[in-house]
């Protein structure tokens, strides 16, 4: 795994994506079926409006590269709220779809960079704001799609309040959205950093240069290769990575003999003293 976990951001509108693309200096990579901007570890997709579009964009992005256990998925955009001031950044703590029972709870396994809120996704723009949640048109589709492909602890929904009961939805227009997203960049970059820290807690596969050396010298079947990797990993942990003296294996006639020799050595090892002093 790369040391920097990859982040995929799904925005509904080009005006939501613009500030992120400029801030991270991303290059346009694809036009259709979704606009994609990116560099190595960051990419932004413009899904279009609606929960189905958001879900489809997640599916499309997932197919672009091999998935990794530490992939991070963010839905970033604007939302309405009855009373929060315009420009307030909010992290969704509960996402549901209006009229349906199902709900998702993005993991708050870090200190959020802003306030949290429940969020309800609607199929249409809302002027009759719910009292205790913000409302958008994408997040439920995004959550449904990512729950099938991503680590649940690495999925977040971040919204900036673009309209409220006092303003109505008439205030939402392109430049204004761009400005709101621009102002929310500190919270967004903090969110990316914090979720990346979370992703770095996932276990990373150990390097195994020694395996290659042994694989070249003897012929190992597929099963034997797996056993060899496991034995060398165990040996490395119990001997604090002590080098393996290849001379001790030179009289082994085949892979089975190598495995038997290694297993006898590894099975007799105690927990290293260094771990317990």
């Amino acid at each position, binding site marked *: 795994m790369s040391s920097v976990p990859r982040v995929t951001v799904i925005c509904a509108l080009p005006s939501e994506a613009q500030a992120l693309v400029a801030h991270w200096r991303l290059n346009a990579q694809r036009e259709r079926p979704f606009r994609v901007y990116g560099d190595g570890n960051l990419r932004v997709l413009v899904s279009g409006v609606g929960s189905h579009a958001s879900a489809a964009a997640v599916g499309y992005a997932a197919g672009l590269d091999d998935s990794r256990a530490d992939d991070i998925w963010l839905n970033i955009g604007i939302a309405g709220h009855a009373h929060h001031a315009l420009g307030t950044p909010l992290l969704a703590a509960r996402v549901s779809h209006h009229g349906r029972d199902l709900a998702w*709870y993005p993991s*708050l396994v870090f200190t959020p960079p802003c306030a949290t809120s429940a969020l309800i996704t609607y199929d249409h723009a809302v002027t009759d704001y719910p009292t205790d949640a913000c409302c958008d048109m994408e997040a439920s589709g995004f959550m449904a799609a990512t729950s099938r492909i991503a680590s*649940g602890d690495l999925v977040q929904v971040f919204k900036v309040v673009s309209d409220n009961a006092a303003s109505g939805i008439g205030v939402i227009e392109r430049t204004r959205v761009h400005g709101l997203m621009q102002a929310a960049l500190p919270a967004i970059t903090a969110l990316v950093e914090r979720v990346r820290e*979370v992703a770095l807690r996932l276990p990373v596969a150990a390097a195994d240069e020694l395996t290659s050396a042994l694989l070249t010298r003897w012929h190992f079947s597929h099963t034997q290769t797996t056993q060899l990797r496991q034995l060398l*990993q*165990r040996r490395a942990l119990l001997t604090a990575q002590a080098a393996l003296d290849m001379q001790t294996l030179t009289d082994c006639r085949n892979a089975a003999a190598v495995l038997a020799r290694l297993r006898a050595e590894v099975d007799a090892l*105690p*927990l290293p*003293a260094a771990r317990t002093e």
Partner: protein
Amino acid sequence: MIETVYIEREVLDHPRTARVLARVRPRHVITCERYGEVFNRHNQNFRVQKAHPALILAAKHGRRLLPVPGGYGFTAEPAFYFSHMLNCLYDCRYCFLQGMFRSAHYVLFVNYEDFIADIEAECARSDAPRWLFSGYDCDSLALEPVTGFAATFIDACAKLPNAWLELRSKSTQIRSLLNRPPVARCVCAFSLSPSAVVDAFEQRTPSLAARLAAIKRLQAHGWPIGLRFDPLLPVADFEAVHRAFFNQVFAELDATKLHSVTVGVLRLPRDQARNIARLYPDEGLFALAETERDGLVSYGADTDALLDWCSAELARRIPAQRIHRQAA
């Protein structure tokens, strides 16, 4: 510090919910319908969540009192365990909870009254003693200032003449026990390991010295004390490390007043062992040789020899009939 608390809608107005919130004072409070919506979802990761767990307040439905698994405890009398809480403040590398759950959030079942009703019903079935083990899926005392668990359940069990309660802990949260008279039918059982093992494998737990100091105070106060040398880990220089350890323990505590002592090696159900090894591929403990017996995996070359040696060492210090060996 707990920043986030999820509350099942059903217990929003439960008085214990209000008490916990007043104590924790979380930054984020989120309502959910059932704790399973947040806890143990298929794509969660215990290791990731353990760094920043949330607290979930919920109601426990269904069976609350369960018969103990074979080989658990020290008594032939009817024995049950119950879990007012899932998961633990501490982070022992060998803990089976990390193999059992995908989520490290703490779930606190606030409907203590239903647990107590079940205990009363079980104890009413006959006059024979009933052992009730707490702290099976958590530590009985670690969150006591927040949960008030021990304070509530000791009182409830003390009223039942055939109820015997065991609190199982590595914690030094003993104030509520010192602020009340001891109860002869409540055993405060502490898990102990050599300092080197505490440092290497029992992250976030109180030191051995702190645990011994707490036990000593409880013993002086009159509480029955149990010692749990479980799990014994096959560390290098096992005998020297453990001889020094037993010397330290019995220099501090009055061996003649101990209620019971158990010894056991680490044993995990096969699936849990596999899950934990996957979570911690960098942990030497799970790289040790494995032996499987009756579906339980143990680690190290000769676990019987460790148990034999420790049982013999302990028998030099306490009457053999108080030493109970847990199935390897």
